[in-house]
């Protein structure tokens, strides 16, 4: 069955087609959820909510643009929604910092570790870093989505990068010292 046919079936709330779509995209969307979430459990919750939204709103998908992209947007929005409702965005005291270009050695750093340090970022740093660096949203878009200013978005991104860099360097140092 083609993707279009599956989508058509899903619009009729057909459980088999939904299961097929889920199997096709679950791992991609789960990795996305993992990056936006604090931990594994939260990511699972987010994935679950995202898929429920996807299947409930699938009749709004009009075969324009990539279906995967549409599902990703829903997954990201679901993740953001969670923080929006909790209201964490105002917690961190703001001190604008300049955007700096941070370069790092491309060593063999495990993807698990990278994920771990992303998840450890404060909520908004994590969201902004994900949106900007990994999913290609502009600062303007991020500012709209998170209801913050562009400046805040830029500042948050810079802070996120610094934290990540520190952690990677620390990780390298500790693993180097262990190996010596």
């Amino acid at each position, binding site marked *: 069955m083609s993707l279009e046919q599956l989508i058509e079936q899903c619009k009729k709330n057909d459980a088999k087609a939904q299961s097929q779509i889920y199997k096709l995209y679950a*791992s991609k969307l789960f*990795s996305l959820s993992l*990056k936006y979430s604090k931990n594994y459990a939260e990511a699972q919750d987010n994935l679950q909510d995202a*898929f429920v939204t996807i299947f409930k709103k699938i009749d709004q998908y009009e075969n324009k643009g990539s279906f995967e992209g549409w599902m990703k947007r829903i997954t990201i929005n679901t993740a953001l929604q969670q923080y929006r409702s909790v209201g964490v965005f105002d917690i961190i005291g703001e001190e604008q910092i300049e955007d700096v270009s941070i*370069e790092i050695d*491309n060593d063999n750093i495990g*993807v698990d570790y990278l994920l771990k340090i992303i998840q450890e970022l404060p909520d908004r740093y994590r969201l902004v870093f994900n949106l900007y660096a*990994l999913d290609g949203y502009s600062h303007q878009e991020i500012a709209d989505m998170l209801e913050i200013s562009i400046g805040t978005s830029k500042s948050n991104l810079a802070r996120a*990068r610094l934290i990540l860099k520190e952690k990677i360097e620390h990780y390298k140092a500790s693993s180097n010292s262990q190996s010596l």
Partner: protein
Amino acid sequence: MSDKKHIDRLFQEKLKDFEVSPDDAVWDNIHDRLHNDKRKRRVLPIWWKVAGVAAIIALLLTVGINFFSNDSAIDNDNIIVDTENSSSGKSNTSIDENSTESQINSEEKGNSSKVANEEIDSNSESNFDEDGSNSNDFNRNRKYSNPKNSPQSSNTSVADNSNKNSNLKKNSETSDGLNVSSQKERFNSTTDAVTNSSKSNQELNNSENQKIDKAETDKLIKGLKNNPNSAVTNNASETSVESSSEEEKKENKDTQSIEDAIAEANNGEEEKDEKEKKLNRWNISPNVAPVYFNSLGKGSAIDQQFVDNTKQSEITMSYGVGGSYAINDRLKVRTGINKVDMGYRTNNVIAFGSIDLASNARVQMANVSMTASAENTAYMSTETLNTNASPEIINSKSKGSLDQRFGFIEVPLEVEYALVNKRFGINVIGGFSTLFVDENEIYSVVDGVQTRIGEANNINSMSYSANFGLGINYNVSEKIKVNVEPTFKYQINTFNNSSGDFQPYFIGIYTGLSYKF
């Protein structure tokens, strides 16, 4: 060596092909959330549809049966009248005769009435000559004969004519008075005339009746019900006039005996009618049943962790009373009220005070509201435990079980169709029940000690079941039957949240007596 890279790029490249499969449970939850709502919403409409269809069928059947039974009643009347005519073989004037063409009737009536008139004339002359009181008798007889004739015209006419015949014969024998021989002759001639006319009427009837439409007969019957009476009363009055020339006392006795005969005949008729028309439609049947409860799929109504545990049903009881209404001799609609208890045991459960283990969300049972005294106790399935990895304290625990019990007030609405409808009957039963929760308890059984730990919080206060049964019954007498009905009841919407594939059902062997009235 390592080349310097922008940190964003590092993350992008590393995470580009990063994919992780989520737990299977995620899909289960998604599926439940997408389809559970739908299922819940569907429950009622499906039953509304089924109930609607059943109601329409019942309505159609009732209307249809009434329609046909009305037709058959008319047919029966005709048949009864016909057989009477042929069996009595004498001077009968009946509805059927009169339903023939008016020409024939009038001709025949004319003939008979001519004779009758002659008779009356001659009799009245002689009677008045003899005794003035005879006119009174005449009137009295008329009075008698009218009410007699009204209910069953054909019968009374038979009785009248035949009895009068014999009376007159008797009278003529006993009396040595005047005009005896002439009366005899005249009377014979009248009866002959009447019998001839009625016979010919009958013959005509048989041929004519077939041609006449039902509607016509209906009208004719109504219209003509009075006509035969007049004809008959004429006959009766003739004969009574004749007989009244004899002794008054005998006359009175005779008329009484006639009345008796008519009454008997009428009674017999009525009884026959009652038997034919009155099917004992209502039925009441107290019943009792052992009930076996189980689930079609592997699951648990208590908690996720007990999905794989073995479950065993307790044999519980259901008792109640049902009533049914027979739409026809095969189809019955029935309802009633039953108390039904159910229970089952979840095996391989260990209990421990939660002090033993740091309070862990995992050990709280999802669907149980614990009583205050049981709050500090946790229950775990040993199925999911790895014996080697789990702490000593858990392994040393002896295995117990969780007993869940619930009771419902059940109101069934079922249709019963008889496949075999003899002294020994077989029928199939289908329908649904509405179940109202009236009991809900969970016990733990550890080392043989039973403790109430709480109640399930996921049982819907109202739920349904789809019922399928096979009934076997035996008629002990006209009114009393013994029934045995093994019935399968698939429960719908009983639990609003259960783990795994928990599809509860129960089987009851409903046994009882049913009494017709």
